[in-house]
Structures are given as structure tokens and as C-alpha cells.
């Protein structure tokens, strides 16, 4: 039993954090709210250069050949920085799914290099596809099989998210235009678990960021002659957020390990992680806004970037209720 990351894993995490501090500050995220693509100029290429995009691709495809345990730390950082791209869909789901199936090697190569973006739409992940209009390829589910579709061949109807940097689309496609990736239900199940895990890691990152900025704000903001954060009610609000994160985070790591090692209870553990991470970020959003007061309620203040991402991610790839139901089924409670 060794529940710790290696120094290499932590250093990679730190390097990604440095990159995102530099290339994905709040001002850059804001640009993605209003620009045409919903993406940050140049960020995708830098993530590719660093090896993040191809982290889970085999080395012979130009990837790093790493796994979910390496990935979750990076997706937590993506959550902290509110990276607007369909990073988890591309990196955590599409590339390993195509690689596992041994199909579309050219797409994998291009995805690893960052030349293209591949997004994902699975039935259980939600009704819309993130970045559908911006992506080059879409990995889509139909009848429990997975198919790869060129974006140009799909019919995409844009849908507005509360988070304007989440460019959602309702996607229709014809099977004639699609390439079968896998009709093995285990591939579909694994793809969903990877996506839910990635969303959970991002939820934890968003929650941590909300906590950090709120702690800083209430320590500095004074009312009644003392910091707002000196009030016990504020302290307990934020202690509760810290508690939710403290116990959700190990479940995300443990679920990552379960996927990486093909553990028996993999899907149950992923659902525990996503349920707890969704609840944590939901609480973090509520308390962060309440502890900020009116200033957090404006679009000029950066808090909204994480609030809206948090609300969206809490529900994306299955909300906490759906995942608890999966846990209940695994425990044969219902």
C-alpha cells in the first residue's frame, strides 16, 4: 500500500501549473468566453509540446504511454485554471479509446501532436457534445458502439451553456459517415469511466481554486472593523468546503488507480469519485459566492469563471445523483 505520487508525477504537475499560470490566466479564459472558437490562442499547441495531449497515447504513436494516475493531477490543474478546451474529452477519452481499439492511427497521431482536436459524445455523459463545432473529429456513441465521425460530416446545432467557454452542440450523424471504433461494450464503459474520472478531477481543481480565492478574499475584505473571514460563520462555510475537497480528492486518485490497473470495482470507484467531486464543487460554488457577497455576483470579477465551470462540470459526465445510483447498484442496494 503506497498512496503517494512519484516525484516525477508531481514535477509534471508543477510544470503544467506553470504553463497554465502563464498561458491560461483568467484574462485568457475570458477571451475564450467571447471569441469565435471558445479556445485560447496557442494553448493547445503548448499542451501538445509538453506531452499533455498525448499523455495516454502509446509511445509508438508519439505519446508518453502514461496512464490515468498521471493524468488526474494534470486535469486537476486544468480545473484550477478553468482551461476552456475539450481537454479531457481529447486526452483522457478519445486518444486512449482509439489507441486501445487500434484504429484511426492517423487521427491519434494528429491528436497527439495537437494538429487536430477530437471530442467525445457518450449517451450517459450528457445530452450535448463539448466543443463539437470546434473539433475536427467526434467520437460518438450509437447503440452502445463507438464511432469516429469527421466534424464536417456531422450536423451540429449549437446550444448555449451558462459557461460561454463551453461551446456545446447537439450532434446528429449518419452511420454511413462514421467509422466504427468498437462495438465492444467494455470499450464504451471504459470510455465513460475515463471521462467521468477526468470530470471529477477537474471538479476537484475548480473547487480548490474557488476555496483558495475565497480564503484570500475574506482575509482581506474588512467589514465591522475586522476581516470578513474572522466571522465564525464564514470560517465554518470554508472549513466545510475544505472538508468536502479533502475527502473527494483521494477518491479521485483511487479511482484513477482502479482504471489504470483494471481493478474489479473500477466503475463503482469512478462513481464514488465523481459523486463526491460533484458535491464538493457544488458546495464550493455556493459558499464561494456567499462569502464574496455582491462582488462575486458580477461578470467583471473573475470568480464567475470558476462558478460557472463548476456548475457545468458538476453535472457533466453524470451528476452526483446518477453516480450514487451506480454505486447503489454495484452494492446491490437497489
Amino acid at each position, binding site marked *: 500500500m503506497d498512496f503517494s505520487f512519484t516525484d516525477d508525477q508531481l514535477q509534471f504537475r508543477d510544470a503544467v501549473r506553470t504553463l497554465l499560470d502563464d498561458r491560461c490566466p483568467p484574462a485568457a479564459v475570458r477571451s475564450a468566453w467571447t471569441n469565435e472558437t471558445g479556445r485560447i490562442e496557442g494553448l493547445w499547441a503548448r499542451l501538445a509540446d509538453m506531452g499533455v495531449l498525448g499523455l495516454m497515447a502509446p509511445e509508438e504513436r508519439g505519446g508518453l504511454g502514461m496512464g490515468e494516475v498521471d493524468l488526474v493531477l494534470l486535469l486537476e490543474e486544468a480545473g484550477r485554471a478553468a482551461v476552456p478546451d475539450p481537454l479531457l474529452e481529447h486526452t483522457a477519452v478519445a486518444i486512449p479509446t482509439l489507441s486501445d481499439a487500434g484504429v484511426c492511427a492517423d487521427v491519434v497521431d494528429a491528436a497527439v501532436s495537437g494538429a487536430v482536436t477530437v471530442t467525445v459524445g457518450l449517451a450517459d455523459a450528457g445530452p450535448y457534445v463539448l466543443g463539437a463545432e470546434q473539433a475536427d473529429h467526434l467520437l460518438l456513441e450509437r447503440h452502445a458502439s463507438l464511432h469516429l465521425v469527421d466534424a464536417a460530416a456531422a450536423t451540429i446545432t449549437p446550444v448555449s451553456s451558462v459557461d460561454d467557454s463551453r461551446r456545446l452542440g447537439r450532434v446528429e450523424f449518419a452511420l454511413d459517415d462514421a467509422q466504427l471504433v468498437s462495438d465492444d461494450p467494455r470499450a464504451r464503459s471504459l470510455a465513460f469511466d475515463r471521462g467521468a474520472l477526468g470530470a471529477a478531477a477537474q471538479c476537484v481543481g475548480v473547487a480548490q481554486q474557488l476555496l483558495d480565492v475565497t480564503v484570500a478574499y475574506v482575509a482581506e475584505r474588512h467589514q465591522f472593523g475586522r476581516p470578513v473571514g474572522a466571522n465564525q460563520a464564514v470560517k465554518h462555510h470554508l472549513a466545510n468546503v475544505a472538508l468536502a475537497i479533502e475527502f473527494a480528492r483521494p477518491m479521485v486518485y483511487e479511482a484513477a488507480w482502479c482504471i489504470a490497473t483494471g481493478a474489479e470495482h473500477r466503475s463503482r470507484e469512478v462513481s464514488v469519485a465523481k459523486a463526491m467531486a460533484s458535491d464538493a464543487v457544488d458546495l464550493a460554488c455556493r459558499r464561494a459566492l456567499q462569502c464574496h457577497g455582491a462582488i462575486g455576483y458580477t461578470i467583471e470579477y473573475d470568480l464567475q469563471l470558476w462558478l460557472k465551470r463548476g*456548475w457545468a462540470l458538476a*453535472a457533466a459526465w453524470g451528476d452526483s445523483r446518477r453516480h450514487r445510483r451506480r454505486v447503489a447498484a454495484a452494492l446491490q442496494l437497489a
Partner: protein
Amino acid sequence: MDLTFSAGELAFRDEIRAWLASNLPTEAMASMDTPAGFEQHRAWERVLFDAGWSVPSWPRLFGGRECSLVEWLIFEEEYYASGAPGRVNTNGITLLGPTLFAFGTDEQHERFLPAMASGDEIWAQAWSEPDSGSDLASLSTTAVRDGDHFVVNGQKTWCSRGAWADWIFCIVRTDPGSERHAGLSYLLVPGDAAGLTRRPVGRLDGEPAFAELFFDDCRVHESNLLGGEGDGWSVAMATASSERGLNLRAPGRFLAAADRLAALQRRLAASGAADDELTDQVASAWMKAHAYRWQTYQVASRLQAGGTIGSEASFMKVFWSELDVELHATALRLLGGDGEVVDGPHGRDWMSGYLFALAGPIYAGTNEIQRNIIAERVLGLPRK
């Protein structure tokens, strides 16, 4: 105890219900927090006024129909149940209005109340400052006497609809040497006053619903002082009591939201898009809306019998604001992955409603402060 409506109350209910059925706007309006929507909603205020429905509880002299408190609650229930547009002059009618009745001179009544009732003058509230939110008494905007005018300097913020409002009611410090609750005055400022600059600020839903106000030697005539000079705090507390108690948020809006939530659950369940797991939460939210209604009627009965409502108003403010969040959060859970979508497929935009509801525990005194008030002033726990 008689929990039925009287014949008169029933007749009142039937009258407003029939009027709404015949007079509701057929076209959807833009958000009242956009310039265009603001004027559309102002026009609707005039329609209400012309029919005698804009301020039903006010004296006939000022455009009302002198209805009872219970009738006003009925009006609110019918109004929200009908799906009628939001009220763009709420802060004027429900917050400043009662304060004007209590503290205004006859001249002020005549000057301000009819134009408020008709929607000719829409009001905004400007109390908070960048460094004075919960701690309102620390405010630093000054108003210095110069003959029969006050010269106002300072900054106000989080002024809802303040960018386009015709008039603004403020609290300012008229005694320059004063501290805290002393030396404050309640001032009514024209939106187009010289020396007043207004900057729209985007609210969480993206609409420019807030304004920052910058007063730079802004001259306001002394006739616009409400209450005595230096009495601003006690006048403001009357407004705050209206804000927390019955006036701002009658049960009608939450009953309507609870009914919409129940309908959403039935619709999703019927279409197979939702299961029964959230039934308990929908029932719970509906029950609370219902309890808010009956608690309100109980308070109204006490008031009609000559009783008063003081710190108990904090019960209502905490309850309706958290109920509103619960109603919308439950709807979002029902919608699942559709929840993040604005202008989604389920008619009403629950996410926008959620964003609006989340402000409830913050404005009109944060719920943390309301709970302090309940503990200290209602239960009698020690302050320190």
C-alpha cells in the same frame, strides 16, 4: 381562525385573475435589465396602473385601491401564477414606497408616489459602497449642505437597474464629523442629476443589471431629503424591514415556482427523461413554498389585528431566499446535463432563475447577518 377567503377576498381574487387573463402581454419582453426591456417593462407598469393594479394596497389618492394585506397577498399569488412580467419598479413600490408613506411629507407624497405608481419614475436603491456592504453604517459618501442643496460626493455600488432608473434613493453622511449610525441622511436623487455618473456592471447572468454610481459634487435639493437630516439610519431601517419582511417577496412568486417545478417533474417523468428519485426533493421544496404561504398569512393576520413585525422579518428573509435556491437547484438536478443550458428545451430557464436565486441569501442583509438577528434579537442570545 378561518382559513378560507371571505366573499370580498374571493371577489377580489376573481377580479385580478380575470383581468390578468385578458390583459397579459402576448409578446415576451426582453430582460428588464437591458435598455430595451427596461422600457417594455415600464410600459407594462403603465398598463397595470391604468387598470388600478400597479399598487393595489396604496390609497386611491395615489393610484391604489386600498386593498387589505390579505388581498395584496392574493394579488401577488394571482400575478405570479399568471406568468405576468416581472415588476421593474419593485424597489420603488415595495421598498421606498412604504418608507415614503411613513416618513415623507405631504409634498413628497404628491411629488413621488403617483409617478412611482404609474411607472413614469422607476426607482433604484443605492446603499452599498465598495467598502460598505454588510457594514452599511461605515458608509463614506458625503452630502454637505450648501444653502438649500446638498452637495454629494462618493461612490455607490450594486445598484440594481441603477443605470437607467429615473430616481435613486441613497443613504449619505450629512454630518461630516459623524461615525457609524449617526449623522446619516436618506436622500432621493434624480438619475439625471449633474455630477452623477452611472456605469453599468454585468450581473452573473451577463445582463448589465447593476450600476456603479459616482457622485462628483452632485447637487440635490433639500426637498429630496426623506425624514430628518441625520435621521437616515432609522429611515433606512424601515426600508430594510420592508425588504426582509412581507413586502419584497410575497409567497406568490415561490408558489408559482413550486408549481412550475412540480410540472417539470411530472413532464420529465412522463417522457421517461426523469425517474422518481427526486420526488422527495420536489415534494420538500413544494412543501416549503406552501409553508411560507401559511406562515405569511399568519403574520398578516397578526398585522391586520394591530400587531407588528420586527426582527421576525429575518425569519422570512432567510426562508424565502433559501427556498428560492432550493426550488431552482432541485429543478437543475431534475434536468441533469440539461441544467447548464440557458434557453434550453424546458420552457423556463431554470439556470438563469438559479443565478438570480443565489443572490437572495446575499442581498437585503446576508443570511449570516439575518441569523445573527434571529439569535440575538428574537432568541435573546448574548451579542458578545
